[in-house]
């Protein structure tokens, strides 16, 4: 990408980025976000992430994006995994061990059924 030389160019880039995200939600794409701050990693976020990727591969899932983010301040609940399917509201799971991660993948992501016991209470 070439350098941004004006606010207009920046706004265009922003709109492109937003359009990409929009496209993802309208086509029912799946986005899984793992909290990967130091607290998350210390609590086992990498293991959770690996389990998620493993299931994705085993099951040959497509149209799925696994991404990382920083800490949101709920360090006690790490590792935190968020599941967003299409335009449905995002579901936030806490204390996600690799086993839980597999279960979330199988039951929620593939099966379409949320797992209330793993959710972070509001």
């Amino acid at each position, binding site marked *: *990408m070439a350098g941004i*030389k004006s606010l207009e160019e*920046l706004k265009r*880039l*922003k709109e492109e980025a937003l359009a990409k995200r929009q496209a993802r939600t309208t086509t029912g794409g799946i986005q899984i976000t793992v909290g990967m701050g130091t607290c998350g990693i210390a609590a086992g976020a990498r293991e959770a992430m690996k389990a998620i990727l493993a299931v994705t591969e085993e099951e040959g899932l497509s149209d799925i994006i696994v991404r*990382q*983010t920083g*800490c*949101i301040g709920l360090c006690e609940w790490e590792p935190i995994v968020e599941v967003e399917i299409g335009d449905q509201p995002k579901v936030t799971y806490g204390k996600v061990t690799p086993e839980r991660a597999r279960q979330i993948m199988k039951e929620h992501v593939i099966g379409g059924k949320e797992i209330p016991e793993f959710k972070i209470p509001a």
Partner: protein
Amino acid sequence: MSAVRSLVLVSGDPQSLARGASDVFSALQAEIKRLGLQDEISLLMTGDLGRHDALPLVIVYPEATIYGPVKPENVPWLVEEHLYKGRIVPELQASAAELTGQIAWLTARQGTLPAEQRVVLRRAGLIDPEDIEEYIAHDGYEALGKAVTQMSPQEVIEEIVQSGLRGRGGAGFPTGIKWRFVAQVDNYPRYIICNADESEPGTFKDRLILEGDPHSIIEAMTIAAYAVGAQEGYIYVRGEYTLAQQRLQTAIEQAQALGFLGDNIFGRDFRFNIHIHTGAGAYICGEETALIESLEGKRGEPRPRPPYPTTHGLWGKPTVVNNVETLANVPAIILHGANWYRQMGTKNSPGTKVYTMLGNVNVTGLIEVPMGITLREVIAIYAKGMKNGATFKLAQTGGSSGSIIPASLQDTPMDFDSYSRAGVSLGSGALLICDENTCVVDLARVLLRFFACESCGKCTPCRVGGQRARQILTNIAEGVGSLSDLDDLETISTHLYNLSNCGLGQTAGVPIRDILRHFRAEVEAHIRLKVCPTGVCAMSGRRVKVR
């Protein structure tokens, strides 16, 4: 984090207790449960609520309605009307006698049960910190573009001055004024330093920002550079923060690739570059002049001040040193304006503050709330109360360089001015919340141990005073203290404050001052009775040699 919708306080001072406050409390508890409101309403028994003509008092937040005197038989009616149906019960309200400052302030805050307000942390935990596109999708670099293409450097400085933003690194100095000082000195080059040393025990707010939203710091530093006319910037990151360093490095490279760093930023005649420098584990290197020494490759020891870094900073040149959280506010202020920023927080401390909550509470972690909320609110609403229903005894702010806040100050608004009027300080934003099982002698001993270890040794009061105070506290904790020790402690505390070269020594005496001011009886019990009232100190009666 969802907040409870209402907070109910019952006065629990001795007078109120004598007039049946406990029964009122249990009745409230039962009634709230009966109506199934326990998850929405936080009920707390507190200390003195500030007026004594209508005890026991019940105060209902966020309306700040004051009821009193309340009898147990009034409770079902009160709960059903006010908490269930949302109607104030005038018959039970306390007469409009003159209110004390504390409650008057509660009333002024009518209707604002402080929800979390995220400015600094608005993107942390949402975006992928290693993807500049996500930052841009969330308004990233727009503030920089606006500043560079539509505002003059002076206008940028004025906007920050108008916003009232104050330093979040501990001292609370007005950021815009600092920038103006640097811009006024006719000496080049000028430098921008981001203080990311964050070595206060229990504080990890800066780490969260750096790891979760590194581009916001790059953008803010670049705005600062444009405002004061700097071309080089340094981020001094704590050595242990390896993930933050990696993400900053990635962010810098991405920003360079898109031209947000480098030459001709936004097509203008403005260039700026950022370098990362890692610390090596010394607490003192968070002090801005020691930090500068360390950056210059020297031993991290503070310089005498004045001259301040604004005139004689890095390599003797005018330098802005700002904390991570301070900087993270900057893009939002430029984008939305000073007036927007001033809607949050209090008049003299606008904006929000990030706190790390730790200790004997149900929920620990990070929150960002408006300046001026109270410790009581933090504990009740965000920390969801004390663990195991224990009683709140004190909070230690700032990890170590802060104050010990006794329960009697928990209704003091947490902002720079209110706290300094109360003789305490906010520190860096760690809130170590302690229950009644915490021994103040032990707490002070732990803190003094930290200061004694971290003293750089350059000036005598700090080097010797810290050690000596630690030794005396250890003796007291061992049951071999004498009353004259307390006089010695007071003297050391005063000397540390008056004679030390930098903030480290100056705050080292604060825990001593605070425990003697607020908890003297407990300290004296260790000496007179050879008893640690909380049972924490070993009190073996054997003098242990303190290294």
